């Protein structure tokens, strides 16, 4: 087993001290280690934002793309090489604002990628504007009189789009986060883990203390069954989406299982030598 610290690149994070992103970085290295993975077997695709910097801090293949598009890149990587463990990571603005469209479709498509949204209810990198998960009335630099919009609920959206693996973690509970990430990676299909996080610099409302006081932990709720989609939706509504733990889990065929003619060997390993015979077969229909 490779030690967690080996999964850290030599690069020092430029996050503010006390930022929740550190906990996610830590949880990732522990999950990789627990799963007995090696750095070269993992590709981490990340979005743009403070959180998006995470791919440079991990000692895995790292792809830091454009704002909001980590998911399509990650799906392309996975489909090209199904042997890789593929992570997509980004902030709430990245994944639920500019990139929301891709989340719904990644869920529907069900490519085996593990997606972590680090949700601090604010735009950190651009220095404190309202985010899609900021509550109505949230005052920020861009909403001095309070946000007018209804907050988006990634949990309810994901459940209604048909997600097969959904969990929500909290940066104040690293053990649970590690477990969720591990299960998400092991899951054959698209897995979404929302990491409730704090932006110590710009979000003075949704602080660690605030999260702690409002969170309802499903892992410790004996009446809760993560295989019941209806109950999952109801509990999200009941607890204002502040539930943590494994929210929903259902085994189903992944995109790789279903794609017609998709080979077991990764696409990157196919023989590409042009063959006249193949060409002749293909062109026969055009004579």
């Amino acid at each position, binding site marked *: 087993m490779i030690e967690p610290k080996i999964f850290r690149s030599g690069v020092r994070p430029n996050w503010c001290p006390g930022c929740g992103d550190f906990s996610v970085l830590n949880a990732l290295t522990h999950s990789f280690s627990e799963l007995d993975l090696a750095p*070269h077997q993992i590709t981490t695709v990340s979005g743009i934002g403070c959180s998006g910097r995470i*791919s440079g801090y991990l000692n895995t293949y*790292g792809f830091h793309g454009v704002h909001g598009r980590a998911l399509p890149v990650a799906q392309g*990587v996975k489909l090209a090489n199904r042997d890789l463990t593929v992570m997509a990571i980004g902030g709430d603005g990245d994944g639920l604002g500019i990139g929301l469209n891709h989340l719904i479709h990644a869920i529907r498509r069900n490519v085996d990628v593990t997606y972590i949204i680090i949700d601090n209810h604010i735009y950190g990198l651009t220095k404190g504007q309202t985010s899609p998960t900021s509550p109505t009335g949230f005052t920020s630099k861009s909403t001095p009189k309070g946000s007018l919009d209804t907050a988006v609920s990634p949990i309810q959206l994901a459940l209604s789009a048909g997600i097969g693996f959904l969990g929500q973690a909290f940066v104040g509970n690293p053990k649970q986060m590690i477990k969720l990430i591990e299960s998400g990676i092991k899951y054959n299909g698209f897995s979404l883990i929302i990491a409730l996080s704090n932006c110590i610099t710009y979000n003075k409302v949704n602080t660690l203390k605030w999260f702690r006081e409002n969170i309802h932990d499903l892992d410790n709720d004996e009446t809760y069954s993560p295989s019941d989609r209806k109950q999952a939706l109801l509990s999200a509504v009941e607890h204002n989406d502040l539930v943590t733990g494994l929210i929903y889990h259902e085994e189903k065929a992944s995109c790789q299982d279903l794609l017609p*003619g998709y080979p077991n060997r990764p696409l*990157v390993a196919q023989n*590409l030598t042009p063959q006249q015979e193949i060409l002749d077969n293909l062109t026969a229909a055009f004579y």
Partner: protein
Amino acid sequence: MNNDINGEFGEVIWQVGGQQGEGIDSTGDILASTLNQLGYYLYGYREFSSRIKGGHTHYRLRISDNPIGAISHKLHLLVALDQESLSTQNHFLVPSGIIIADENLNVNSTMVRHNVVKAPLTRLSEDLGNKIVKNMAALGISIAIMNLRLADFEDVINQRFSKKGSKVVALNLAAIESGFDWACQHELLGKLPLKSGDKKKRLFMIGNQAAALGAIMAGCRFISAYPITPATEIMEYLGRQMPEIGGAAIQAEDEIAAINMVLGASYAGVRAMTSTSGPGLSLMMETIGLSGMTETPVVIIDAQRGGPSTGLPTKHEQSDLLSAIFGTHGEVPKIVITPTSVSQCFYQTANAFNLAEKYQCPVIVLSDVALSLGKQTVEPFDASKIKVDRGQILLEVDPTPEDGTFFQRYGYTASGVSPRPLPGTKNGVHFVTGLEHDETGLPADDPALRTAMMDKRLNKIPDLLPGSTFYHGPDNPDYLLVGYGSTYGPIAEAREMMANDGLLVGHLHILIIWPFPIAELDYNMETAKNIFIIENNATGQLEGLLDMHSPYDRKTKPIRKYNGQPFVPFEIYQQIKERL
């Protein structure tokens, strides 16, 4: 129309027109497929509107016993199933041409100069029990007029309709025959007799199919795209073939997702592409920059249509040129290829994958409505002409001294291209980002480094790629016709017309337009006295590029067309003649 001593024609231009949903396409396709088997050279062009049922549509087929690369302004035989075919198309007819009009149509006095034959198409088909086959009755009449043999059509009809059952096959054959018989009874047999074809085997296909085939042969095993006219056939064809050849085809939620998936797949090491048209290209711009910045190869086919905005979705234009070359913010290395024919759609799409990997940059293949949807006769493709050159991919990497240090993905090299290990490769772990970065790939904004990295990226593609232009004609021509991409066929033919008039005329054509092949262009333009720049856009985008690169004013003369239609050779010839 050059008829020989036997009174046979080496060339006939036939057209059928009607309402969408009346089987106009299949009428044209059946005639064309049969003629292809008989060894004629063909060029088929459809006019259609952006709706499924209703709206006028027509299919024009130029049939020749010699290679051709363009439609023609002329028409010899017009089959009209709707009024619009008569009112908007009759003026193309040559004086000796024939119009076959359904007898329900109103043939007005403007058409009396032509030989108008009112045919009971609806009645003939109703007699067979189904008026849906009136297009086939019309085809039967056409066959008789061109002196073709009914029996030659059986194969194609069988192939086309056998899935629908033997009754449908029989119905269609009967309709063709009844049209043929009617034509014979009305003394139309052999009115426009075609010389016979050479029976050689040749392909007949649209540019989109050729491009998709080129991609497969070049080893493309991943496509992600979003449907858009006139590019959709590429994703549809690859969607059908990928399962057969062990690849993957994904219909993306939008073009942004499509290009990002392709970039991810290509980063992971599979040859990958997307296909789109102008609106999609606009959406892809940010990621084209990411491809340039991260030096990740990507291949994009942009089948241009009339712009801007939703523009003319089904009509022809070459107006994405500057957008393809300069689009995306900032300055990135890029290659833009403008294939000149359906055949080149095949070979140049294959070439695009090599260039993208060799130079680790985005490559855009620019086709357009005429090329993507126009059907041309193509000599059989030769797989041995396609070489797969994957550039600098590292399959093995030596261990680094310390764990946790990234592989230097962007190390400076003499060529400016740095070797790339693919994800999954031991010891090759590295980081790529759209942020400016150092040799390791880590974000960095030191001024000296920034300059060095910009130079590395921008200088790695040579100023001139081999085979960027080609020239036909005499040394030191008096007249030089210059174009790029799909105007090749029309310009080549216009040049022949001018040469036949005894003029010293040359044709300079661009196949790879970025990096801009100014050295080759200048070499050819230097001695020419009159230079005509021929392009399908309003603002003269190629002329703009020439101005940008040429130190002196060449006094070029523009010939531009942006009404949604491709050039026909004669109008180029005519416009030049008017300005001599």
